C-alpha cells in the first residue's frame, strides 16, 4: 500500500503495490488517454512521475527520453509516488457540421392540446387512452412517470392540458405548451457530435462536440473491444463512460436539466461497436472472424431504459448498421448526402482507422470496410497526433523548396495530424523527396538536402517524417485504394468510370483533393470530382429525427446494401501490394 499524489490536481489516493500509473490515474477519477490500451506500443501516455516506482524495462525505455518521464501504462507503483499529468488534453478539432440534403419537417414527435378533464369519476389519463380518441400509452398501461404527471394535473386542477405525442403515443403531459426537442448524435470512435433540434420547426438550436471519453480505454475500436475481453465489467464501464458524456452533452445543449426533460427523441448513429457499447452490450464477437455483431437492426427504446436523463418516455433510436464494420454512421451518411440516389457511378469514403467504402452503380450499393490502421488519424506516426491544437494540418513545398504549413489554432507546431501527413507525403512525392516505391530519394535537390538526415525529413527542428512513417502511410492508403478497386471490380466498372468521390468523416473535411490524388488514396485511373461532406453521420441522424421518411430510408438501405468482406477475398492481397506505391 502506498500513496499517489497528483501534483497539479492536488489529489492524493491510496494505491496498491503493482498498480500501473494508468490504474492510479483512473482510480483518482482523472483522465489520460491510453491509445493502445496499455500494450506499450504507442508511447502516447507519457506522464511525469517520481518516487517509489519500478524501473523502466526495455520496452518502456524506447519511449522515454527525459528524467521522471514514464509511460503510464507500463510503470508500476512500489510505494509512495508523485504523478504530474501532461497539460489538459486539447479539444479535438472535429468537424461538427456536414453536408446534407434538405428534407421537409415530418417528425414523429408532436405537441397537441388535449381535451380538458371532464367532471366525471373516470380517471383522466385512462379516459384519453380508452376513449377511442386515437391515443395510446405504448405499453398498454401508462408509465409510472405518466401517472405521476397525470397526478400533478389533478393537483393543479388543470383546465387545459397539453400532451406530447410520439406517433400517437402520449409521452408527456403538462398544463402549458412547451418546447419539443430532439437530439441527433454521432458517436465516433474518436469524437462525438451532437445537435439539439426544435422538432416543431426542424431547426438546429445548438451544436456541440467532444472527444469520446472511451479513448481512455483504448484509441481504436479493437483495443476497446480487447478491454471488454479482458475485463468482465468492460462493456458496463464503457457504457457508463459514454452515457455520462452523452448526458453531459445534452445538458450542454439544453443548458439546464429541466429543459433536458423536454427532449423527446434521440437518434444515434455510430459504428456498430459504438452502438453496442452505448447499450453496454458485449462487442467481442465483432472482433473475431466471422465478425458477428449482437444486433444490426434499428433499436427503439424508451429513454428510461437507456440511461438518458431526458423525458423518461422519450424515444431513443439507434440507427441500423449493415455489418460489424459497416455501421449506422455509414448508412446515415449515405442517406444524408443522397449518395444512394446518384445517377452517375460514384464512391463514398469514410476515412478513419477503418476505411469504409460504398460504391453506387445505378442504384446498386455495395459496401466494405478495410483495416487502414491509425496512420491517417496521425497515430503510429513518429511525430503524429490527433487533429488538435498545434497539429500541422496542411503543408506544401514551393518551387524554391521553401516549406509552408499551417497548424490548428495557428499555434506552435506540436505534431502532425492525418491531413498534414497526407499533404506532407504528397509534397514529398511531388518534389521527389521520396520515390515512386516510397523509398527516400538518396539523390536530393541541394536546396532541400539540409532538411533530410538519417532518412528523416525535418519540417521543423523537432518535427519530422521518417521512412517508417511513409511506409505506414503507404499501408493505410494501399488498403483503402485496394478496397475501392475490389468493390469496383465487384460491380464491374473501372476506376475511370467513377465520376464522383464523396469523402465523409470529420477527418475528411480538411484534406486537400490534389494531395489525395498525388498519394494515390484513390485507385489509379480515377479522374472524377472529389467532394467533402464532413460529418454526414450526424446529419443523417438529424434528418431521421425531423423526417420519419428518412428513418425508413435508412432502414431500407440496411436491407438493400450489399457488404463485401475484404480480408477473406483472395484478390485483396494482390491489389493491396499493387496499391502501395506512389505511381
Amino acid at each position, binding site marked *: 500500500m502506498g500513496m499517489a499524489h497528483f501534483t497539479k490536481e492536488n489529489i492524493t489516493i491510496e494505491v496498491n503495490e503493482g498498480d500501473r500509473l494508468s490504474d492510479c490515474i483512473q482510480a483518482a477519477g482523472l483522465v489520460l488517454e491510453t491509445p493502445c490500451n496499455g500494450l506499450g506500443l504507442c508511447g502516447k501516455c507519457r506522464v511525469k512521475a517520481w518516487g517509489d516506482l519500478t524501473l523502466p524495462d526495455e520496452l518502456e525505455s524506447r519511449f522515454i527520453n527525459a528524467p521522471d518521464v514514464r509511460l503510464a501504462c507500463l510503470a508500476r507503483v512500489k510505494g509512495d509516488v508523485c504523478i504530474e499529468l501532461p497539460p489538459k488534453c486539447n479539444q479535438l478539432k472535429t468537424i461538427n457540421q456536414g453536408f446534407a440534403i434538405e428534407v421537409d419537417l415530418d417528425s414523429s414527435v408532436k405537441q397537441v392540446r388535449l381535451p380538458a378533464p371532464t367532471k366525471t369519476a373516470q380517471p383522466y389519463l385512462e379516459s384519453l387512452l380508452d376513449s377511442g380518441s386515437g391515443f395510446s400509452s405504448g405499453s398498454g398501461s401508462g408509465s409510472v412517470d405518466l401517472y405521476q404527471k397525470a397526478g400533478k394535473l389533478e393537483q393543479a386542477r388543470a383546465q387545459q392540458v397539453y400532451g406530447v405525442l410520439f406517433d400517437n403515443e402520449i409521452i408527456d403531459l403538462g398544463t402549458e405548451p412547451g418546447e419539443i426537442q430532439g437530439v441527433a448524435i454521432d458517436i465516433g470512435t474518436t469524437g462525438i457530435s451532437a445537435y439539439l433540434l426544435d422538432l416543431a420547426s426542424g431547426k438546429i438550436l445548438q451544436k456541440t462536440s467532444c472527444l469520446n471519453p472511451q479513448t481512455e480505454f483504448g484509441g481504436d475500436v479493437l483495443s476497446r473491444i480487447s478491454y471488454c475481453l479482458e475485463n468482465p465489467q468492460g462493456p458496463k464501464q464503457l457504457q457508463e463512460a459514454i452515457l455520462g458524456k452523452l448526458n453531459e452533452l445534452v445538458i450542454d445543449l439544453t443548458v439546464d436539466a429541466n429543459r433536458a426533460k423536454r427532449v423527446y427523441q434521440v437518434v444515434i448513429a455510430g459504428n456498430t461497436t459504438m452502438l453496442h457499447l452505448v447499450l453496454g452490450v458485449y462487442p467481442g464477437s465483432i472482433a473475431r*472472424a466471422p465478425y458477428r455483431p449482437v444486433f444490426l437492426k434499428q433499436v427503439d427504446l424508451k429513454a428510461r431504459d437507456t440511461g438518458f436523463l431526458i423525458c423518461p418516455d422519450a424515444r431513443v433510436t439507434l440507427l441500423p448498421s449493415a455489418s460489424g464494420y459497416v455501421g449506422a454512421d455509414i448508412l446515415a451518411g449515405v442517406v444524408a448526402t443522397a449518395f444512394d440516389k446518384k445517377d452517375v457511378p460514384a464512391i463514398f469514403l469514410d476515412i478513419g482507422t477503418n476505411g469504409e467504402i460504398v460504391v453506387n452503380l445505378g442504384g446498386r450499393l455495395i459496401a466494405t470496410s478495410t483495416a487502414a490502421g491509425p496512420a491517417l488519424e496521425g497515430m503510429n506516426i513518429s511525430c503524429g497526433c490527433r487533429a488538435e491544437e498545434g497539429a500541422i494540418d496542411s503543408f506544401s513545398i514551393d518551387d524554391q523548396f521553401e516549406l509552408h504549413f499551417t497548424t490548428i489554432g495557428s499555434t506552435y507546431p506540436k505534431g502532425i495530424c492525418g491531413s498534414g501527413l497526407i499533404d506532407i507525403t504528397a509534397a514529398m512525392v511531388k518534389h521527389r523527396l521520396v520515390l515512386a516505391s516510397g523509398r527516400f530519394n538518396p539523390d536530393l535537390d541541394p536546396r532541400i538536402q539540409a532538411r533530410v538526415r538519417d532518412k528523416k525529413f525535418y519540417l521543423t527542428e523537432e518535427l519530422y517524417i521518417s521512412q517508417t512513417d511513409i511506409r505506414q502511410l503507404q499501408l493505410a492508403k494501399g488498403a483503402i485504394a485496394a478496397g475501392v478497386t475490389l468493390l469496383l471490380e465487384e460491380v464491374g466498372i473501372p476506376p475511370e468510370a467513377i465520376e464522383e468521390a464523396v469523402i465523409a468523416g470529420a477527418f475528411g473535411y480538411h484534406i486537400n483533393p490534389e494531395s489525395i490524388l498525388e498519394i494515390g488514396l484513390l485507385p489509379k485511373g480515377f479522374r472524377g470530382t472529389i467532394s467533402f461532406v464532413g460529418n454526414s453521420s450526424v446529419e443523417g441522424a438529424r434528418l431521421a429525427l425531423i423526417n420519419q421518411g428518412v428513418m425508413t430510408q435508412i432502414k431500407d438501405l440496411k436491407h438493400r446494401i450489399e457488404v463485401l468482406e475484404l480480408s477473406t477475398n483472395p484478390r485483396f492481397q494482390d491489389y493491396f*501490394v499493387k496499391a502501395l506505391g506512389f505511381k
Partner: protein
Amino acid sequence: MDKETLFREISHALVEFEVEKVAELAEQTLLQNIPAFETITEGLVTGMKEVSRLFEEEEYFLPEVLMCSDAFNAGLEVVNPHLDKASLEKPIKMVIGVVEGDTHDIGKNLVGILSGASGFEVYDLGRDVPLDRFIEKAEEVESDMICMSTLMTTTMDGMKTVIDRLIERNIRDKYKVLIGGGPISQTFCDKIGADLYANDASSAVRKAKELMGRV
C-alpha cells in the same frame, strides 16, 4: 562467365527483381554443369539475404520483396529438377497460420513466402486457424517451428492458448514458437513464453534461422 561471376549476376538480378534474367542465368549454370545446390545457396539465397537486408533497412517495401521472391522462385524452378537432394541439409520445417478469429493474412503470407525463399519447408494453414490445428499439423509433419500471426488485439491470446496446450501435452520443447503481427510485441512474447518475436517478415526469417542455429 565463371562460376563466381555467374552467382554474383544471379544475386544482382534477383535484387533488381529481374525475373527472366534470373531464370536465364540459372539455365547457364546448368549448361556449365554447376551443381544446382551451389546455384541455390551461392546465388539465389545470397540474393534473398540482400533483399532481406534492404527490407529491414526500409530501402525495400512489400512490392519489391514480393517481386524479388518471384525472381527467386523463377531461378529455383530452373535448377530444382537437377538438385541432388542428398547435398541439402535437412530443411527447417515450419507450420504457419493466422490464429483463430482473425482473417487478416497478408503479414503471415509474407513470412511464408520469405521463409520458403530461404529454404524452409513451409506448411501454411491459412487464416482463422483453429488453435489445435497448429499442434496437430506440427506433430504430423514433425515440424521444427510453429509460427502464429494476428492483426487484431482481440485474438492474440490464442497464441498463449497454443503454448499452454503444448505444455499440457508435454511437447513444448519439441517446437520453437515464433509470433508476430500488428499488436504483438517482445513484451507479449515474453509474457506468453513464446521463443521468438519479430516485427517484420524479413527479420522473422533471419531470427528463425539464428534460433535454429543456421546462419
